[in-house]
């Protein structure tokens, strides 16, 4: 378990959580990006515009 950086509510983690994964806070609905694991570090997940190449 880890605290949502927006609302402070508990957010549950998978066992095999990886850096880069996006979690949804069930309480406030914000998207959280896992920056690091062990210890878990979160930030608000960036909105990204998709630009495909060839």
């Amino acid at each position, binding site marked *: 378990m880890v605290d949502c950086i927006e609302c402070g509510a508990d957010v549950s983690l998978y066992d095999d959580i*990886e850096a*880069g*994964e*996006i979690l949804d806070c069930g309480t406030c609905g914000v*998207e959280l*990006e896992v920056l690091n694991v062990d210890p878990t570090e979160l930030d608000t*997940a*960036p909105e*990204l*515009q*998709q*630009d*495909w*190449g*060839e």
Partner: protein
Amino acid sequence: MTASTIVVKIGGARAVNPTEVLDDVAELVEAGTEVVVTHGGSTTVDDTLEQLGQSPEYVETPKGVVGRFTDEKTMEVFEMVLPGLLNTELVTDLQSAGVDAVGLSGVDGGLLTGPRTSAVRVLDDGKKKIRRGDHSGRLESVDADLLSSLLSDGYTPVVCPPMAGHEQDGQITAVNTDADGVAAAIAGALDATVVFLTDVPGICTDPDDATSVVETVETPTDWEMLSDAAEGFMSRKVMAIENALSDGAPEAIVADGGATKPVTGALTGDGTHVH
């Protein structure tokens, strides 16, 4: 044949008859039409990656759209294949056909520029993730000066991705961008008609029925039909067409690259004409 400047997008190796297309381009250039040829080459990138013992990586967005993830090594192979092998061969073949072709990638002279986008949202095994290190870019600007100067000197530019991707620190990185989008952006910048040569006779209402080609798209109702008809890879082509027209291209045509004189045919009525 009224267009004085046209952009011809040549499809993948299997999509067009190169000799037929290049001879047709040579006749148009000889007759005084200014032509910019553009091309991609994704299939050859994949083949070359495999020959080098690597696998092309495709990722899926949370919305289910699939696209290439271009890591650093893939970008190197991309540079080898597009501005290297394919562009050089196309330029050489055009020279043999009597066209004074000059090959350019979007990096040359800052021809095609925009911000690099290195992070993408992907759906991996059901999980939403952010992947960083993608070498892609958002094509925002075409420097038409270089093209106009070459065209007025009698050269025929042959343009391919990559484009010049601006990093946040001001550095330039060569990044991947969609070849249909390149053709559309150049047509928009030059106010030129763009002809997309593909392996189908045009945009079809029934993809399994070659006789269901939409001939003209002009009214909002036509456009609605077009969007419905455009499936799979065609949806990105329709997006490119919208951009070309809104940027100033008078017309976009999707036509069969395997036909006899495919460019002349498209300019005189074959394929799907979008206004």
